[in-house]
């Protein structure tokens, strides 16, 4: 698995080279493709199954040449031309999947409100269907508005909690069978013109296109997902582009390149010659100047792989990193993350750790699966009045869906992506 | 041979001065065939300044000799300074002639004589002579001297001499042939020493007299080497009569043949005129090379390698007397080492030069450098110089320098040394290359007194730590000067 991920990096590197090269003529795409093809030739190509939810609530997204249509069309086309797969299957999904062939252009052209007439489907059910059709060699792409529909007269809170539990179970069962499964959720927006159904199926009409969130879920083997993300980074999405994304990975426990840097720092320390990158001692706080009484040191991290897999937003979020000292959670050090601009080193990100109380021992910085804040932010807890509490930009119950999946992943403890260990001594 | 002694009778002023020269030579460490010298000055004139000087000198010598390590290859002692012991009988140098009679006619008891004897006395001695105050020497009258000097066998020192005498000991007599005490005393003394069964004043036989009779005996007769200036007081001493008196004495000495083993003569025609003082404190004649040469005759007498030449006996009877005279290679008025014959050079150059270097160091350098040099560290500090033996050593060194200076200022100058320099190595005149060739590394680095300090620092670790500081001091300086000054003919 590690090798494939390294191949991703290599390809990424080559791709970025290709883009920045001024000597290349316009036809650099073909040569890129051939390189990509060469890389993937050693592995069996997965099948990509695309499921577009066609319940009634989706009609508003496909009313006219919407961003939704543009984004989906572009994404599927990119998948096809990336060479990652030889087989792309298209489906509508509701209470069951309906095969729609493999012609993306045709599929998109035919994607109209009149195709979205079915009753609102239960999103966890849809998820279940999709998961059952996903395995090591099949990538599933699910396009959905992600809204829960409990119906009238139901206890919404209870309903959502039960849904979450259900999803958790489904996901866990799937993970037990296919432990290397990764899940991406992209959140995009598109103009929505049509009927909005709230949690009690009450309607709200949007006569004019209203920007509303929708989601593209991608589920598959982590290596395939990695390749997919390598070839199609967030920036390639059209139709408004990716607003947020969240990737759930299996516990990779990757080893990356990292080290304690010389600067910036407040105060001083000496390096242990036996492990100069990670072990320091004789730590002293700054004795004068603006930062008197503080100790700050900087860690350089090569997160280039995780930039691909998890995205920059995730990596620059301090919540993504757990800190332990001597195996105990410890927040003595205040952390900040920024990009590394030193051309002489290979690190992509720097983490600054500041404290006025020097804690010593074995410091572990763990990059792991952490539920992102943006899903909480985009979650509509009530789901009744679309115009209240900025609900127009939110999705009812999306949190419960995502949390269910999250809990399945972190069932046996947080899924650890990489651990960086340091030794601090007085 | 086991410890044997040489008893030296130095008669009169010359005796004192030759003994002084001998002491200087022994202090500097010349080779001496006996372990111990016992000097006895015979003089009527107790307040003679020469005598006083000599006595002080010998006392200083003895004090230093007590702490000086004796040359001993087994113990690793190289020191030769003050190697020979000097003893004083009854702690006295002067065999004082017991006599309290003041005038000569009283002494011979003219008043108690018969008138016939009185007439005889009047014929023999002049009126002035009869009226002579005898506490001031015999003012150049050997005829009187002989009468008086007959009394010395009664003295305590003489008895001590007899008691002390052992088989193998030897006797030497120093006297001058001119002037008073010496000329007459010498043959008298010799006669007394060889008369068997000599008795003392109480009529008791003198101890060991048989050994004394048989002992090897040598003598030196010092012929004129100075004139006396015109008289300034009523003095009967007259230079012009020196030669006449010498002739008279010499003919008498002819009868000494076969009574002595070896008889040495020395004289100098190139004379200095001394101030005329008839005796007392002011008869302080400056040192002369002749006295040094006379001292060398003593060393010649006891030289074990010259025994065959000097002594010819059969069954304790003297078969023939060896006669020796001192000479230098050319008649120069300024004698340097180059003018001495090989034998003299060998005997004198190294000891005198080393001792002078030692003295010069003490004079010019020691006080300043002892604070810094390792050889002196915690050993030779401020208190060291206050020690009795060291004070006496320095006094003796001062006397040594004066002795050299005096000899330099005579008409017949003995000036092998440049006495006015205060450099370390240019104090020897002439083209004799004395200084040992230093190692090239030493030569580059160390100049002048620094070279001496370097040598002292080098030698200190080779000296025996068990020695007391004063002894070690001498051993150290001998080793250092020996290392720096090593004349090889």
């Amino acid at each position, binding site marked *: 698995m590690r090798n494939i991920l390294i191949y991703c990096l290599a390809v990424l590197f080559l791709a970025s080279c290709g883009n920045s090269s001024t000597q290349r003529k316009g036809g650099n795409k073909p040569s890129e493709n051939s390189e990509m093809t060469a890389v993937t030739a050693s592995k069996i190509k997965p099948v990509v199954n695309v499921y577009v939810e066609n319940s009634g609530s989706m009609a508003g997204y496909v009313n006219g040449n919407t961003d939704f249509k543009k984004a989906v069309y572009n994404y599927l086309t990119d998948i096809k031309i990336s060479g990652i797969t030889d087989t792309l299957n298209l489906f509508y999904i509701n209470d069951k999947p309906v095969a729609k062939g493999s012609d993306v252009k045709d599929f998109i052209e035919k994607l109209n409100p009149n195709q979205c007439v079915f009753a609102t489907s239960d999103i966890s059910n849809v998820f279940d269907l999709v998961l059952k059709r996903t395995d090591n060699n099949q990538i599933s792409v699910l396009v959905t508005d992600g809204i829960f529909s409990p119906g009238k007269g139901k206890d919404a809170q209870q309903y959502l909690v039960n849904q979450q539990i259900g999803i958790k179970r489904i996901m866990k069962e799937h993970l037990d069978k296919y432990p290397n499964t990764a899940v991406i959720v992209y959140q995009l927006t598109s103009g929505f013109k049509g009927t909005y159904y709230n949690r009690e199926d009450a309607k709200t009409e949007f006569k004019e296109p209203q920007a509303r969130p929708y989601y593209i879920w991608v589920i598959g083997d982590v290596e395939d997902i990695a390749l997919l993300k390598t070839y199609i980074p967030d920036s390639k999405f059209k139709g408004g582009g990716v607003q947020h994304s969240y990737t759930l990975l299996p516990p990779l426990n990757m080893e990356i390149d990292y*080290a304690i*840097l*010389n*600067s*910036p720092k407040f105060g*001083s*320390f*000496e*390096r242990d*010659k036996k492990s*100069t*990158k990670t072990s320091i001692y004789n730590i*002293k706080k700054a004795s004068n100047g603006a930062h008197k009484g503080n100790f700050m040191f900087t860690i*350089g991290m090569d997160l280039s792989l995780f930039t691909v897999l998890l995205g920059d937003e995730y990596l620059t979020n301090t919540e993504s990193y757990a800190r332990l000292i001597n195996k105990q959670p410890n927040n003595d050090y205040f952390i900040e993350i920024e990009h590394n601009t*030193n051309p*002489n*080193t290979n690190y992509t990100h720097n983490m600054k750790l500041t404290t006025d109380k020097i804690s010593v021992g074995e410091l572990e910085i763990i990059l792991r699966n952490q539920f992102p804040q943006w899903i909480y932010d985009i979650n509509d807890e009530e789901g009744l009045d679309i115009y209240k509490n900025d609900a127009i930009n939110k999705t009812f119950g999306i949190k419960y869906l995502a949390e269910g999946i999250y809990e399945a992943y972190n069932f046996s403890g947080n899924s650890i992506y990489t651990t960086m260990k340091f030794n601090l001594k007085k | 041979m086991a410890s044997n002694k040489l008893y030296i009778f130095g008669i009169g002023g010359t005796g004192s001065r030759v003994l002084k020269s001998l002491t200087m030579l022994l202090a500097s460490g010349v080779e001496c065939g006996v372990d111990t010298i016992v000097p006895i000055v015979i003089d009527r004139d107790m307040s003679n300044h020469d005598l006083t000087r000599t006595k002080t000198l010998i006392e200083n010598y003895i004090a230093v000799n007590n702490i000086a390590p004796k040359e001993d290859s087994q113990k690793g002692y190289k020191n030769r300074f003050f190697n020979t012991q000097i003893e004083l009988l009854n702690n006295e140098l002067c065999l004082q002639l017991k006599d309290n009679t003041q005038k000569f006619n009283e002494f011979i008891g003219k008043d108690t004589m018969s008138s016939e004897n009185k007439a005889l006395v009047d014929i023999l001695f002049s009126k002035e002579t009869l009226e002579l105050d005898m506490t001031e020497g015999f003012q150049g009258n050997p005829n009187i001297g002989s009468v008086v000097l007959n009394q010395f066998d009664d003295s305590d020192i003489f008895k001590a001499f007899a008691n002390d005498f052992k088989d193998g000991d030897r006797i030497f007599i120093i006297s001058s042939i001119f002037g008073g005490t010496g000329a007459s005393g010498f043959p008298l003394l010799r006669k007394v020493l060889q008369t068997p069964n000599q008795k003392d004043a109480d009529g008791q036989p003198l101890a060991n007299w048989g050994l004394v009779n048989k002992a090897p005996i040598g003598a030196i007769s010092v012929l004129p080497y100075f004139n006396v200036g015109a008289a300034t007081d009523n003095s009967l001493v007259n230079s012009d009569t020196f030669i006449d008196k010498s002739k008279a004495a010499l003919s008498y000495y002819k009868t000494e043949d076969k009574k002595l083993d070896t008889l040495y003569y020395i004289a100098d025609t190139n004379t200095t005129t001394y101030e005329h003082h008839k005796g007392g404190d002011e008869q302080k004649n400056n040192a002369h090379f002749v006295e040094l040469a006379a001292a060398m005759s003593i060393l010649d007498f006891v030289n074990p390698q010259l025994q065959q030449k000097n002594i010819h006996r059969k069954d304790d009877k003297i078969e023939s007397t060896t006669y020796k005279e001192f000479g230098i290679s050319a008649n120069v008025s300024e004698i340097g080492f180059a003018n001495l014959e090989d034998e003299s050079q060998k005997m004198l150059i190294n000891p005198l030069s080393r001792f002078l270097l030692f003295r010069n160091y003490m004079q010019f350098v020691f006080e300043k*450098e002892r604070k*810094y*040099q*390792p050889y002196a*560290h915690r050993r030779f500090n401020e208190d060291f110089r206050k020690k009795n033996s060291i004070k006496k050593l320095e006094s003796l060194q001062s006397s040594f320098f004066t002795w050299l200076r005096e000899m330099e200022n005579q008409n017949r100058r003995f000036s092998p040394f440049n006495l006015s320099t205060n450099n370390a190595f240019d104090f020897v005149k002439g083209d004799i290359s004395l200084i040992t060739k230093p190692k090239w590394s030493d030569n580059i*680095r*160390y100049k002048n007194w*620094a070279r001496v*300090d*370097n040598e002292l*620092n*080098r030698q200190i670790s080779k000296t025996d730590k068990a020695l007391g500081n004063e002894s070690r001091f001498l051993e150290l300086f001998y080793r250092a000067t020996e290392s720096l000054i090593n004349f090889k003919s």
Partner: protein
Amino acid sequence: METIYRWLSSLFGSNLAEHLSGWSEVTGDYTEANLFFIIGMSSLIISIAACVTYYYILNHPRWNRGFKWLIFLVIVLIVNFLLAFGICYSDLLAGNISSDISAISVAECLGFGLANIIVSIVIFVFCSLIIKWGSRNCKFSPFKF
């Protein structure tokens, strides 16, 4: 050597210390020349050589006073100061110091020169105490014991 200088690092700062240990930001390790070692060994050799010269090669009875020993010490200090300061300063001017090492100026280089002076004094005094015993003429210089 390095630990001794590090102990004095308050004089020249831990940043310069990193450079002197041979820090290279490219490798993220101490792979450059260990200047502590180079300067330290040189200073050690110079100090010992001067000491040996004073006690055994010059070994002079007129140079065994304390003041003269001090001359040798001062020469050693000047040479070693220039060595330490010079190397640092030339690195500074030539831009040989890793860009991730901050806050190094003339002051730090001078501080290191000073640190080397202190180290040299200790070496020279210590060496003197040990080797002076075999010196013929300077055994008690400058200490009277």
